[in-house]
């Protein structure tokens, strides 16, 4: 019990520090105790954050949402279709395709980013939304999970009777199977959302235009400038808080889903 408490303090400490620091005026950051509140300056800090460089932070936040939400939504759909087909349809080469996908899980994404950059610069895709968005929709791990979930959640008899009723495979998938798979689809979405949200190397390699940055890359750039412009420090801190709190809240609200998903996906 004491051990758990200690570990909990360890996990919560940096976030608590961030919350406290985000409420302080820049001058108090170094001058006052980092774990105690001083002058409550949060709203002024937020105002500075959102108006700095013509509101570029808001643009970054929106970019992150576009990359992560849209990317994960498209990614979940295509992973689900593929995993479902690999689980429920019998065809030649099925195991081979699945092995290739599994191999994809093991390819380090950072090792992909550099050759992707070269290919994308040859096709003029570098420095566009697509440069980050397109590679993000591919999730071999999502297919892997979808296959396990589909095998577990969709009974063979149901497909059989849908076929006898003359329903097409797509209709069966969208109106019956996808509903049975719904909790696991949320899990796949969340995993992929976090993977894209956290991805840093790919956008760093692909993007030079600040207006296309996701929030991670933007804060990284600002953080690098704090040595020359110390006043940026407060914005980096407030910006970090603003970008993690919504995601943490969504995670806590959706924990029912990711927990069942993890339970069924944890390879019994």
């Amino acid at each position: 019990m004491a051990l758990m408490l200690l570990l909990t303090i360890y996990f919560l400490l940096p976030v608590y520090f961030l919350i406290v620091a985000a409420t302080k005026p820049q001058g108090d950051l170094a001058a006052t105790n980092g774990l105690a509140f001083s002058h409550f300056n949060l709203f002024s800090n937020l105002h500075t954050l959102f108006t700095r460089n013509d509101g570029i932070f808001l643009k970054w936040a929106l970019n992150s949402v576009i990359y992560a939400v849209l990317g994960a939504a498209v990614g979940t759909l295509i992973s689900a279709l593929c995993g479902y087909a690999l689980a429920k349809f019998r065809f030649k080469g099925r195991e081979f395709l699945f092995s290739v996908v599994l191999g994809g899980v093991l390819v380090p994404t950072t090792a992909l980013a550099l050759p992707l950059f070269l290919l994308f610069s040859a096709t003029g895709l570098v420095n566009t939304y697509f440069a980050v968005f397109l590679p993000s929709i591919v999730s071999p791990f999502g297919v892997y999970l979808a296959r396990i979930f589909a095998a577990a959640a969709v009974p063979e008899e149901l497909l059989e009777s849908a076929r006898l009723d003359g329903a097409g495979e797509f209709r069966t998938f969208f109106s019956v199977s996808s509903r049975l798979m719904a909790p696991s689809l949320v899990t796949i979405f969340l995993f992929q959302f976090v993977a894209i949200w956290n991805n840093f190397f790919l956008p760093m390699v692909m993007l030079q235009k600040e207006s296309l940055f996701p929030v991670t890359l933007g804060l990284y750039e600002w953080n690098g400038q704090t040595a020359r412009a110390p006043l940026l420090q407060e914005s980096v801190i407030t910006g970090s808080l603003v970008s993690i709190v919504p995601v943490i809240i969504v995670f806590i609200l959706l924990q029912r889903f990711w927990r069942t998903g993890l339970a069924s996906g944890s390879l019994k």
Partner: protein
Amino acid sequence: MTDTETRVARVAAPRESRRRRPGGGGPRAGTIVAFLTPFFLPFVLFYLVPVGYAIWQSFRVVRRSGGQYGTSYTTWGGFEQYGQVFQNSEFWSSIERIGLFGIVQVPVMLFVALIMALLLDTPLLKIKAFFRISAFMPYAVPGVIAAIMWSYLYSPQLSPVVDLLQGIGLHPDFLGPGAVLWSAANVSTWLWTGYNMLIMYSALQSIPQEIYEAAKLDGAGNWAIAWQIKVPIIAPSIVLTTVFSIIGTLQLYAEPAVLRQISSNISSTFTPNMLAYAVASGNNYQQAAAISVVIALITFVLSFGFMRLTSKRAGL
């Protein structure tokens, strides 16, 4: 390799192989292709093609005709780039660093995660949901932002932790040459312990209770149940988390890159990925490709090696 892959596939999805439909029927080939294409088309374009392209590039070299100022052209170079990788002392020191990091950080993190999962699984503990959520919360924090948060806790000017330790007479230098690797390791541990714990905990929850009752009748205590029954049963989850941690360690980039912004003790070639990026920024794409291929190969060898080793031992 393929042998292990199919074995993983069988371990991972044992259910459907048991439930093959007896009568043929099923969808037409065109329908199957329509289900698979939306994934496999981008998978080929953005996974397989870049991997192939990197391998191809890694066998090319840039040569100049007519001395140093001649025009440059790329040509087949065989293993020349790989020879350069293996002769590069920066490459070896980055590998050494990451090896040390992995050998310490991965076992520590997974051990803590396992202990937490086992504690959460006992009825002794109250307020489980709170512990579980606070441990899992860092998973929602991007590596860059986690590193920024921790860098403020490391920095001597701002850190309340440094203040506290100085109060009891310690003078830690989290960003010093000996410590900075472990400061980066701490960020990774903070980020991923809860995630790994949750995978193990979920596996623990799916163990049927009857097993414990039988063990108790045989006189097994809580300790024995935990180590002799629970841990072996969730071994596949532990293997999975280990493999993911190995992959994660070899990909390390964001955390040291952020710490580099405040510490002079992290070079631009601190990890293999940072080295690959630095070399690519110097316009030597062929060399960067060779480094990337080597990193990917090490990842494959280590993850498959570990899976094979443990699957033999645990009879998975």
